[in-house]
């Protein structure tokens, strides 16, 4: 029995829904009505958010650095693309196939990635994704190379909701998939399994000494994150009905790392909020002046890692804490 002196509410509160979370999830439906001309951008945001979430699961929670998450994004994108091209255009089937293929390759490569320390992991993840990119680039008759897969046709979702020209269906589809996978991730990070991942990140040498099979846990989360990235890739193919080798490109892996650091790794909302900030800023600023965009992005990144290690989420939390202290 719990000693009467101990109040367990802080532990319960950690997993309970905060009012701010409800408010956050009202934003996607609100954006649909407020910005009907930006549905394509908004879908891209949801897809990228899911992709960043996949990196957050391994880097933010388990401490696995990676510069190769685009490998799984690209595998998922092509899996869904191939199915669509050869008449299997059911969207959910495409997601399942993407998750399966990316997850399988994630599982297999995890044994290479998880062997070493940080630098090894960076290089192995980078190397694997470079090999995939070059393979896809060479096999033009299968992948279409830089010109991309032609003739991807998507069937209606559940046989009822077909993808429309305005991107309405695409938007709801991506947002709902993101939301469901977010819920799953949220469950996971608040569970004992999630706690063990944090344990691995904070002190990998202690974990075996309290009886935790570190390798098994890491293989599991790496595989799951690969599946998440694969689904994100599939969503991109399905909503744009296009996939080229660009889905496997290195800059995608680097970009989501940047977004995650910006938003705050180790927090699911950090991944989501970072994506919104980045994508919106990118959309509006890079058009005005691409050089300025690169410059200020670089400057922001440096400032964040030097002075605000927990990114936008960390700054937000600090501000809330300060307000709370000022209030009576």
């Amino acid at each position: 029995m719990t000693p009467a002196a101990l109040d367990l509410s802080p532990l319960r509160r950690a997993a309970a829904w905060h009012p701010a979370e409800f408010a956050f999830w009202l934003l996607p439906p609100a954006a649909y009505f407020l910005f009907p001309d930006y549905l394509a951008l908004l879908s891209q945001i949801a897809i990228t958010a899911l992709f960043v979430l996949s990196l957050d699961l391994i880097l933010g929670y388990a401490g696995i650095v990676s510069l190769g998450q685009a490998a799984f994004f690209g595998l998922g994108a092509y899996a869904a693309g191939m199915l669509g091209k050869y008449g299997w255009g059911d969207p959910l089937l495409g997601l399942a196939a993407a998750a399966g293929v990316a997850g399988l390759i994630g599982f297999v490569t995890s044994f290479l990635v998880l062997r070493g320390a940080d630098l090894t992991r960076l290089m192995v993840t980078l190397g694997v994704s470079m090999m995939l990119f070059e393979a896809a680039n060479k096999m033009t008759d299968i992948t279409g190379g830089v010109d991309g897969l032609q003739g991807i046709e998507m069937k209606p979702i559940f046989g009822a909701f077909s993808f429309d020209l305005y991107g309405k269906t695409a938007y709801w589809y991506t947002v709902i998939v993101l939301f469901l996978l977010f819920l799953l991730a949220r469950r996971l990070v608040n569970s004992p399994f999630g706690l063990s991942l944090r344990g691995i990140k904070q002190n990998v040498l202690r974990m075996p000494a309290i009886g935790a099979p570190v390798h098994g846990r890491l293989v599991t989360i790496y595989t799951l994150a690969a599946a998440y990235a694969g689904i994100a890739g599939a969503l991109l193919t399905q909503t744009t009905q296009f996939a080229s080798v660009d889905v496997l490109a290195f800059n995608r892996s680097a970009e989501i790392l940047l977004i995650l650091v910006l938003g705050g790794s180790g927090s699911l909302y950090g991944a989501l909020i970072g994506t919104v900030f980045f994508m919106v800023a990118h959309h509006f600023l890079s058009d005005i002046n691409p050089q300025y965009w690169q410059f200020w992005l670089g400057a922001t990144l440096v400032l964040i890692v030097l002075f605000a290690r927990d990114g936008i989420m960390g700054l937000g939390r600090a501000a809330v804490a300060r307000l709370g202290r000022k209030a009576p």
Partner: protein
Amino acid sequence: MTAVLETRGLVKQFGGFIATSDVSLSVAAGARHALIGPNGAGKTTLINLLTGFLEPNAGAVILKGEDVTHLAQHQRVKRGLVRTFQINRLFADMTVLESVTLSVCERLGYGWNWWRPLAAHGAAVDEAAELLGTLRLLDVAHEKTRNLAYGRQRMIEIALALAAKPQVLLLDEPAAGVPTGESRELFDTIARLPREVTILLIEHDMELVFRFAERITVLVGGALLTEDVPEVIAKDKRVKEVYLGEALHD
């Protein structure tokens, strides 16, 4: 008495340096056994070999009659062999309650449960809280480990091990660096552990060792010098020479 933990001809080399030299040790069930020796004698290395943190170059480790020499660390923990570290190995950004609950969850096999929130694992949380109560850590249960004073952190080091419900507990200088007053409390806690828990203690403070141990093994230069009851060890000339000279004013 039956041995719960044994080593046979254990050897560990680092490059050309022999850190553990043909060590055959036997720890009886329920023992209060101390392992002493000067700095660099190879005490921590021996613990590392026992727990699987290091692989020996030769020899065997036998736990409850089973050869565990090639088992992974966590598999030995599952079989009841648990250690603490000379230098803290804690979860700095977790609260004290989270850390200890993590250890309890691993023991109860909840570590793979990814669906139910931590707070829903009432039995594990309650057990962790109870342990914090015994170790007088309740008042800091919701504090982050990194914000605690060193003495309390040292206690968490022990809490993590106890949460794994050891049958054999290896304590590597549990009070290292802890102020005297607090180290007394720490040792009282250790002394109160039930007899089912076999304890192998590494400690430099001879007063504490002689008060606690019923059997003492002396390690010098990686090799066993001698092993006996405290009264005999206290009179052993060789031991005095290599180690006790300054500590025991005769």
